[in-house]
């Protein structure tokens, strides 16, 4: 009697363990015709963006009655870690957010992303144009872009006027002068969410973009080493700029985009006048204004020129947001990616996120004055580099970002950034 109880009890425990260890079946890979469930991870946890994905998934389900899309919104800072765990567990989301560069290359190398080269429709190809190349690895394509997100400096024109600045600065000297005018008027010049590291690191990326040639940037993506002297120059230029004290108080514990105390929140509430950010910023700022409406006096200017660098004037640092299919995803995944970049969906995307859509056909819906300026500069840019932490992969990218934060806090120098990147290769 008791013995059977023991056996039954142990069996129950073992079953529980199996369930916990996630031995669930991963659906029916590339099966077609029958009912299909697509799991879909994106990073819009609130507001219009979240609603947009719900609506778009519903519209796709209506067109394809056999498909059900299960959406999971993952907070942006959690995305990389969660996705990696999921991919490694063998039960990954069918559609997941991707930004190209070294991070996607690592996923592709591990055989976890689907080659969608032949699945991309001609209409999609012509709509998104060159931004598709952000997801190309060894001549094959692994993702569909939905937004282009070049960076630059967003600012409050009211605060600029208040400080007596009539035209936005075009050189670093000009920017430092503007900072001094703002400080004199009792206004914090620049907000930076250094707690999240990457917003501070964007300053270094942009100085590197001005100091280094496009070839050097791309070569480092291969070698994952900073051996060109321009990397040091970029650090020294940033150090000189930091020494003028342009950033908000307590930036080390300021987050980027959560809450009124974040750098975007400071801009939204006129507590600081500028922020270096990607083209998603107007949407984030709008969600943090007191009435959650777009900030009416938000304007934009490109990252200023830095004299003496090898980077071409007008080049931009930025990102491309897109989506990839998991290697074992049903083939309907690619259909959904094509559906995302249809003109009407991209127009709705641009409106919901207040950003620049990847599809050129949809760019006419951009009416925000700041974004129109971003778009004009983007279309004129000789080249656009992907964020360096994305370009150089997670391991190097993380070390780079933390080293830049150290410099912001007065704990490291230009050589420290180069050393941290070169040392990161060892910690893998």
């Amino acid at each position, binding site marked *: 009697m*008791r*013995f059977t*109880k*023991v056996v039954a*009890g*142990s069996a129950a*425990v*073992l079953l529980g*363990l199996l369930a916990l260890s996630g031995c669930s079946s991963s659906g029916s890979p590339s099966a077609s015709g029958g009912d299909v469930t697509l799991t879909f991870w994106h990073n819009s946890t609130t507001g219009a963006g979240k609603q947009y994905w719900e609506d778009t998934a519903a519209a796709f389900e209506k067109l394809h009655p056999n498909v059900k899309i299960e959406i999971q919104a993952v907070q942006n*800072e959690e995305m*990389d*870690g969660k996705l*990696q*765990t999921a*991919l*490694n567990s063998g039960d990954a989301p069918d559609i997941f957010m991707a930004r190209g560069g070294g991070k996607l290359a*690592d*996923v592709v*190398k*591990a*055989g*976890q992303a689907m080659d969608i080269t032949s699945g991309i429709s001609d209409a999609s190809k012509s709509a998104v144009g060159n931004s598709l190349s952000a997801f190309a690895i060894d001549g094959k394509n692994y993702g569909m872009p939905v937004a282009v997100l070049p960076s630059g400096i967003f600012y409050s024109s009211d605060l600029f006027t208040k400080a007596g600045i009539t035209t936005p600065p075009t050189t670093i000297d000009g920017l430092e002068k503007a900072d001094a005018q703002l400080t004199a008027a009792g206004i914090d010049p620049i907000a930076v969410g*250094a*707690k*999240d*590291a990457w917003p501070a690191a964007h300053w270094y990326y942009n100085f590197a973009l001005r100091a280094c040639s496009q070839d050097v940037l791309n070569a480092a993506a291969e070698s994952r080493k900073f051996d060109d002297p321009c990397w040091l120059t970029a650090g020294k230029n940033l150090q000189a700029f930091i020494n003028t004290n342009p950033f908000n*108080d*307590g*930036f*080390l*514990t300021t*987050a980027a985009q959560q809450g009124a*105390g974040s750098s975007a929140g400071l801009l939204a509430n006129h507590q600081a006048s500028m922020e270096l950010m990607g083209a998603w910023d107007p949407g984030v700022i709008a969600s943090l204004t007191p009435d959650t409406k777009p900030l009416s006096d938000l304007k934009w200017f490109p990252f200023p020129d830095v004299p003496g660098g090898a980077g071409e004037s007008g080049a931009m640092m930025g990102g491309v947001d897109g989506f990839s299919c998991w290697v074992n995803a049903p083939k309907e995944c690619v259909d959904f990616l094509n559906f995302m970049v249809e003109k009407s969906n991209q127009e709705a995307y641009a409106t919901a996120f207040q950003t620049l859509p990847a599809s050129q056909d949809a760019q006419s819906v951009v009416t925000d004055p700041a974004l129109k300026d971003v778009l004009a500069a983007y279309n004129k840019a000789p080249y656009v580099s992907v964020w360096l932490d994305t370009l150089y*992969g*997670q*391991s190097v990218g*993380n*070390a780079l*970002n*933390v080293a830049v*934060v*150290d410099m*912001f*806090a007065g*704990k490291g120098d230009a050589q420290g950034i180069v050393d941290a990147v070169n*040392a*990161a290769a*060892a*910690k*893998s």
Partner: protein
Amino acid sequence: MAFLREDTQTTAIAPGNSGPAGVSATAPAPAGPRRRTRSKWPARGELALLLGPALIVFIAFVLLPVALAAYYGFFSWSGYGPATDFIGLRNYVTILTDPDFHQALSHNAFIVVMSLVVQGPIAIGVALLLNRKLRFQSLIRVLIFVPYVISEVVVGLGWSLMLQSNGAVNDLLDKVGLGALATDWLSNPSIAIWTLLVIITWKYVGFAVILFLAGLQGIPEEITEAATIDGASYWQIQRHIVLPLMGPTVRIWAFLSIIGSLQLFDLVWIIWGQYVASTAGTSTMATYMVANGRNAGSYGYGSAVAVVIFLISLIVALVYQRFVLRRDTAGAITGGNI
């Protein structure tokens, strides 16, 4: 201190009355050999039933992960697919030569020592006070214990909001005319670790007080009464009778505090976030592990760091058991005569 949640009461237990309920079937000695053999299997079955689930969970979620971490620590592994790139001890060499890790380790050491030095005296004082008959005694006890009950995330968020440069603490200092003292409590690398220490003390001193109170109440009143009759003053009694009798409790508290300090993670992670703990000078071995392992996508390296933390904690625990706790645990663990 981030204490282990288990309550490792190690008051020596006499072997006779410590058995589980099931043992009663075999307990009465006069039953003779015949009955013992008959009841062997049911007793074993019961043992398996009671021990089995806990053992399975322990193996699956403690021993297996430790073994796997030790295995992955020898690989350069980005976390995708099976680990194939065997690199021997390279990860360990990198860890032990990394200045960031040395810093994290020194922060842990600072917290270990300062927690004992700061929390111990405060907790003993409060416990002695609360052991006397006082008005509102239970209210005060509850108030002191409340911070320990609140979750680390809530505590971390609350304090980080209050301590920000434009937060409530600086605002208060300003309002009471001490504006000159307002500073960057969290970001300034020369202050941040002291801020952390204050928060840790506030949060965990209640736990020490409760432990000490329990220890105090275990001291028989007869002893102190006898001392009073012999003419000992209140302070003499505390110094020569109460404190020595509190020894076992204090030693156990110190053990929990040390282990908790070595594993400190959550408060730092919530207040300083994923990236800036090392910059602010509050990184610990555990935050170093997550930053350079999971966040960097270097799972082999992270596993090696986990093994290093495990070994450091294990060595400290064993040394402490061997040299400090030996008297208290004699009999209960070592099986020796009391």
